[in-house]
């Protein structure tokens, strides 16, 4: 059975139209987003792993080795099933730092200019057999269908078509930030086609070849050799598992679809079961196909058994389906691996060798370079295919590539699990591993070119060779020896050479769960604009401005940002964003040259407590045992410091604020988030002068420092201590601030009270002493008045009597004031009706006709009681109302009102319409001897006495005035007494 050229061309074009059409529709947004962005689409695109090795090679293996083919599927599936071991940390750092390839990952973890380039070149070298075998699979498949076409011509046609597709749909954007949605959809479609083709051929094998499932099992029971095939070499299954495990993680085409064309972690979690399920379905199809091929005795090579069944039974549909499946499998691997390799070579080999671009055409030039690289890699692969012996087995070729990729596994494991791993170890390990690989696996592939007389280690017959690859000691030894050499040298060199500071920090970034990078030091640039200017020297002004704008938006930082740690984050984000454009090597070079650190600022000794804490936070979930206990202890102490009721701040030697506790926030009204990590100079001038001056001063204590904060005067005690974090060197300074403003006010009030008490006692003594002679004078004046008949003398005596009476009244008031508070008011307390009390006071004042006439309006309700002494309360109202009357204008109105406050206090308000009081007068009006009346008109003791009496009744008195000329309002508050029991 053969197919005509026109049939094959029609079929090929149909397939390509579907493939290109789906990619184009996705790029144009014609397909619904819920389909193109669905996690299942992402998972299916990972089916790119199942290339010609899967569709052809494993079938051939199943024909010869029974269940051995399963290790291919099991190894790859295991990589996803145990994703938390390697894939999850890999995806975390790849997505966080936008590492578009494995070369980026290694360049990030082992910072050195040559690391990315070395990984890229080795990956290209190692993968050439894999790409070549895809070409071979398609060429052989088409040749089996049409013997008129030579394999070489078919291979050329296939390569040209795939080059066009890769350039059109895989290299439209330079930056990995722009995803190639068309490529993802096309590869997902290819995976569906592969699976459908496999399932159809398998079902055809079961039901058309054997006649049914039970018949197939019946045949199997009669042919036990097909079930009993096992690998004679004990080490091989484990080696194969490891090979395919590493391949599923490190193969560039898998990495590209898993992490480069994906910026969402959600599909990755689904891929953990989705990819193994896809592989399970594929592998379930293989045994029936292999058994049907054996049952039928197909004429084609076992690698092409699926198509061989159709050809043997002359079933055009099955044959075509197998052909399309094979084409889909091979084209997927070829396209994506070429794209990935081209990006790696461009970013890590071509770009570092070129001069720094500044012009706007750079993106176009880079895209053109990438497209040329794609064409170049496919051309080299074609050359490799042509150089290979014509009848190389697919599985044999594939294993050579898989062993090459396996060499990256030690470095990758070291990336996440060994902090001491360094670039010396990586370089040594890779050289050792690849040397063994080249001598034992790669060179024998091409050996027939150099020494045709020597039989290549792979036997001429492809089936024997396929089996030999898996069973021969040479193959097993080659794999194990190369890996062992790699691991031993990697460990040895890593132990022999200390990791650099940058390597230690990169290791922390890779090993911690945080998205933030470790602190590297203080930047030379002190502001965002300075960073932008420095970056513009390399990228050009427009590109620099664009990058800075993007970074500020991503980090939500203002353009005025100055905090050293914030500037560090901006620098890291710039490097991350540049990585997605030009790869890790160039991005690191650009940031290192344009935004450098201050020399020596990144050393461990000078690293601030702030960054150490940040890093510990990042490592929190990884700390165990003693480290976890120590971390818990640190947090406890930190919390104590934060919750201390006294203000504490800490300043490092670069004048950056490290600690700013809650009390400090409350005192300064500056949140910690706005100052921690910042230089002290950004503080308001008042605080800057105080803290800066005190930190620099020799004194360790400063008492009674005055400061105006938010228009409020503060009195502060400051204490400081130097923190010695390096022996014999001055470290950070911790400053403790006590706010003694309240205490000082209380102290002043106490002193004032004591002074008043002294004055009162003095006044009482003086009053007592002065009272006696005054009484004597008054008696003598009385005698004089009675005994003399002279009118002049009588008038004098009368005046003396009046003046002595006045002096006596003053003295009596003084004595009363001095004795106030000494009596026990509680013992004489009875419920007093306020309204009656106020009426009494008004009545008493009305008797005095010498004063001006005013109208008293008592609006107090009846039956409102307070507990107290009615006489003394009446005196309070007399004094207050008296003052109100004196302040009022003639015929003025004095209102007495009542209100029950929410906290059960009786509020009596006496308001006049008099001349009012200034705020200064209001502050002093309750002090003894203060009066606003004319000289000789008042003693200045009325309100002081009233205050004293109200205080005895557990009440309060306060005054307010809208201003001079607007009247005064006196409010007396007394505890309200429930009046029910007196009703």
């Amino acid at each position, binding site marked *: 059975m053969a197919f005509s050229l026109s049939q094959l061309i029609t079929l090929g074009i149909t397939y390509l139209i579907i493939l290109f059409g789906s990619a184009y529709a996705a790029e144009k947004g014609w397909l619904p987003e819920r389909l193109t962005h669905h996690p299942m689409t992402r998972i299916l695109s990972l089916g790119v792993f199942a290339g010609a090795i899967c569709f052809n090679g494993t079938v051939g293996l199943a024909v010869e080795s*029974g*269940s051995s083919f399963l290790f291919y599927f*099991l190894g790859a599936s295991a990589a996803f099933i145990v994703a938390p*071991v390697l894939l999850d940390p890999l995806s975390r750092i790849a997505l966080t730092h936008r590492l578009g390839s494995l070369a980026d990952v290694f360049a990030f973890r082992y910072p050195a200019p040559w690391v990315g380039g070395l990984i890229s070149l080795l990956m290209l070298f190692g993968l050439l057999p894999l790409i070549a075998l895809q070409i071979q699979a398609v060429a052989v498949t088409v040749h089996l269908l049409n013997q008129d076409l030579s394999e070489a011509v078919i291979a050329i046609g296939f390569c040209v078509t795939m080059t066009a597709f890769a350039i059109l749909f895989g290299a439209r954007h330079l930056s990995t930030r722009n995803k190639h949605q068309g490529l993802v959809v096309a590869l997902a479609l290819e995976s569906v086609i592969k699976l459908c083709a496999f399932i159809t051929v398998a079902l055809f094998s079961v039901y058309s070849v054997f006649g049914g499932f039970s018949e197939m099992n019946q045949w199997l029971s009669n042919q036990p050799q097909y079930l009993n*095939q*096992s690998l004679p070499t004990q080490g091989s299954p484990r080696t194969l598992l490891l090979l395919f495990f590493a391949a599923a993680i490190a193969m560039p085409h898998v990495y590209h679809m898993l992490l480069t064309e994906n910026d969402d972690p959600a599909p990755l979690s*689904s891929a953990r079961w989705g990819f193994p399920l896809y592989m399970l379905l594929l592998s379930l199809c293989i045994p029936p196909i292999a058994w049907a091929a054996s049952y039928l005795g197909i004429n084609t090579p076992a690698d092409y058994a699926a198509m061989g069944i159709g050809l043997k039974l002359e079933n055009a549909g099955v044959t075509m389906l197998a052909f399309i499946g094979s084409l889909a499998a091979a084209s997927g691997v070829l396209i994506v691996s070429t794209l990935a390799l081209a990006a790696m070579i461009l970013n890590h080999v071509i770009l570092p060798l070129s001069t720094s671009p500044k012009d706007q055409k750079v993106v176009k030039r880079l895209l053109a370079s990438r497209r040329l690289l794609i064409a170049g890699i496919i051309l080299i692969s074609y050359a490799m295919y042509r150089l290979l012996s014509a009848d190389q087995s697919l599985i044999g070729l594939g294993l050579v590539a898989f062993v090459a990729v396996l060499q990256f596994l030690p470095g990758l494991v070291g990336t996440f699990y060994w902090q001491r791993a360094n670039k010396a170890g990586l370089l040594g390990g890779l050289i050792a591993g690849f040397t063994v690989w080249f001598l034992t696996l790669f060179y024998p592939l091409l050996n027939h070119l150099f020494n045709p007389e020597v039989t290549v280690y792979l036997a001429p017959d492809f089936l024997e060779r396929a089996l030999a690859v898996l069973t021969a000691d040479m193959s097993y030894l080659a794999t194990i020896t190369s890996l062992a050499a790699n691991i031993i040298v990697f460990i040895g060199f890593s132990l022999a050479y200390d990791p650099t500071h940058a390597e230690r920090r990169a290791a922390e970034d890779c090993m911690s769960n945080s998205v933030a990078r470790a602190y590297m030091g203080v930047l030379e640039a002190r502001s965002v604009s300075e960073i932008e200017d420095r970056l513009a020297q390399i990228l050009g002004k427009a590109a620099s401005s664009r990058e800075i704008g993007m970074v500020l938006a991503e980090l939500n930082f203002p353009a005025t940002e100055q905090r050293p740690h914030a500037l560090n984050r901006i620098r890291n984000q710039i490097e991350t964003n540049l990585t997605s454009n030009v790869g890790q090597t160039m991005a690191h070079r650009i940031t290192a040259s344009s935004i450098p650190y201050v020399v020596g600022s990144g050393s461990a000794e000078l690293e601030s407590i702030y960054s150490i804490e940040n890093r510990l936070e990042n490592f929190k979930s990884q700390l165990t045992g003693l480290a976890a206990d120590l971390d818990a202890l640190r947090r406890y102490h930190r919390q104590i410091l934060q919750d201390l009721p006294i203000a504490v701040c800490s300043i490092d030697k670069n004048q950056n604020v490290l600690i700013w506790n809650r009390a400090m926030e409350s005192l300064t009204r500056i949140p910690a988030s706005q100052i921690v990590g910042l230089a002290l100079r950004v503080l308001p001038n008042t605080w800057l002068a105080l803290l800066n001056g005190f930190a620099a001063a020799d004194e360790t204590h400063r008492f009674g420092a005055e400061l105006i904060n938010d228009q409020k005067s503060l009195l502060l005690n400051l204490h400081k201590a130097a923190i010695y974090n390096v022996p014999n060197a001055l470290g950070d300074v911790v400053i403790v601030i006590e706010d003694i403003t309240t205490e000082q006010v209380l102290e002043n009030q106490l002193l004032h009270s004591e002074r008043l008490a002294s004055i009162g006692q003095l006044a009482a003594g003086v009053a007592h002493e002065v009272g006696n002679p005054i009484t004597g004078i008054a008696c003598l004046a009385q005698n004089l008045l009675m005994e003399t008949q002279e009118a002049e003398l009588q008038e004098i005596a009368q005046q003396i009597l009046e003046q002595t009476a006045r002096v006596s009244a003053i003295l009596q008031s003084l004595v009363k004031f001095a004795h106030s508070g000494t009596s026990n008011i509680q013992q004489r307390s009875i419920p007093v009706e306020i309204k009656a009390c106020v009426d009494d006071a008004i009545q008493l004042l009305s008797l005095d006709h010498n004063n001006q006439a005013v109208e008293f309006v008592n609006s107090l309700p009846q039956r409102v009681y307070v507990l107290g002494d009615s006489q003394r309360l009446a005196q309070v109202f007399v004094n207050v109302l008296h003052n109100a009357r004196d302040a009022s204008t003639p015929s003025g109105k004095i209102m007495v009102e009542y209100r029950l406050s929410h906290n059960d206090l009786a509020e009596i308000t006496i308001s006049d319409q008099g001349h009012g009081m200034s705020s200064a007068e209001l502050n002093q009006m309750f002090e003894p001897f203060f009066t606003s009346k004319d000289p000789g008109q008042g003693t200045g003791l009325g309100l002081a006495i009233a205050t004293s009496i109200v205080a005895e009744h557990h009440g309060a008195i306060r005054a307010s005035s809208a201003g001079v000329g607007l009247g005064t309002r006196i409010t007396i508050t007394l505890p309200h007494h429930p009046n029910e029991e007196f009703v």
Partner: protein
Amino acid sequence: MSLDQLIIFLVFGFFVFVAEVDSWWAGDSIFSWYVNYLPWLGLIVLCIWAQLVVKRKSGD
């Protein structure tokens, strides 16, 4: 032991004893050939379960 740890433990156990398991598969097994796939399917179910647990926790 968390679900993730159990899955890793099972896969590691398979890796260590793969030769023995392979001999058992290829030997005179009393099971049908497709029974080999059941442990694999079981691991996939465990992975789905682990994902649901994570989703539920993140939902909390």
